[in-house]
């Protein structure tokens, strides 16, 4: 593989992972943030039920995506980028991967600490990772909330950067992640 030249576009699999997980994250923000504002009750429970099922789906997809990523090379960054821009782009992507794991995991442990086991769409139940622990729950909940803001900020930066590449630099950074487009080399 090291001898192969890097692809110019993201593959269908890479695009599938990217857009599926992106869509699920939007769903997760909607469910998670609105559930957080609901009083304790059946409606909050129902919303968090979906939130947990989707969250565990993201965790499973993240495992597959990371494995896939380890064996597949992404397209290279455009030549015109400065060293700082490259490092920032790399750091953003690494942090995304970290959060893809840490968000569901903190949610899972937090549910365990609260003694509300996590179901996957009522098909099966994930084991509790820790026993009931009120203090651990409080800490994990704060962590999960804070990291959701970090993820939100990161996603905003990511979207703005993609738009900047597309409209300002007029390169194919956005297009190569879009299905049904062709990435012609734009200078």
């Amino acid at each position, binding site marked *: 593989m090291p001898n192969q030249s890097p692809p110019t576009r993201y593959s269908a699999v890479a695009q599938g992972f990217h857009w599926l997980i992106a869509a699920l994250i939007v769903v997760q923000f909607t469910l998670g943030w609105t559930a957080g504002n609901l009083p*304790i009750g059946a409606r909050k429970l129902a919303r968090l039920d979906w939130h947990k*099922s989707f969250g565990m789906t993201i965790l499973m997809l993240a495992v597959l995506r990371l494995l896939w990523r380890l064996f597949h090379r992404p397209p290279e960054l455009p030549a015109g980028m400065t060293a700082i821009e490259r490092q920032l782009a790399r750091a953003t992507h690494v942090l995304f991967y970290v959060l893809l794991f840490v968000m569901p995991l903190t949610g899972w442990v937090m549910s365990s600490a609260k003694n509300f086991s996590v*179901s996957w769409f009522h098909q099966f139940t994930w084991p509790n990772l820790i026993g009931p622990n009120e203090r651990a729950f409080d800490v994990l909940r704060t962590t999960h909330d804070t990291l959701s803001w970090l993820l939100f900020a990161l996603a905003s930066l990511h979207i703005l950067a993609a738009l900047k590449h597309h409209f300002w630099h007029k390169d194919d950074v956005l297009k190569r992640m879009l299905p049904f487009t062709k990435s012609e080399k734009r200078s």
Partner: protein
Amino acid sequence: MRNIYLAGTAAVLLGAAAAVAAVASYTSDAQQSRLEFVGLQAGAEFKGVFHKFTANVDFAPDALASSRIDVQIDMNSVDSMDKDRDATIRGKDVFDVAHNPTAHYLTKSITKTAAGFAAVGALTLRGVTKDIPIEFQFVPGAAGAAKLSGSAKLNRLDFGVGQGDWKSTDTVGDAVKINFSLVLKPKG
């Protein structure tokens, strides 16, 4: 002919008297006994226990007609290992402990089964009384003690446990499993 009937009746009465005499009376050891419920919430099982309950048991395997199990449960002692959930369960939409502080179970009949015993009893929960069957094992222990353990199933909505939003069974299932393990000591 009449004498035969009389003799027969007398024999039955004597038998019943003998059966009454054969029943041993027990009360549950509060520390060692356990009363647990298992429900389904958001697709996942959750367990809770009642810390305070008393069982008075008159029982002998060969005198089931005069055996009975009588359990009083302090609904306020519910513990599902989460204070928010416990507060909700005690609240007016679920157990409504302010108006229904105790639940009561009293057997009406007990029969022998292949695996142990089965009973039907009246359960009063949240002000509603309904017959609930149970299955149990009875194991005599040392010094007149015994262990009575078993299980039951009930539908919470039959007792109005779950009002308002909690009537929906999408998030909290209707079926609830009960497990009990009573450590019985002889009544002194």
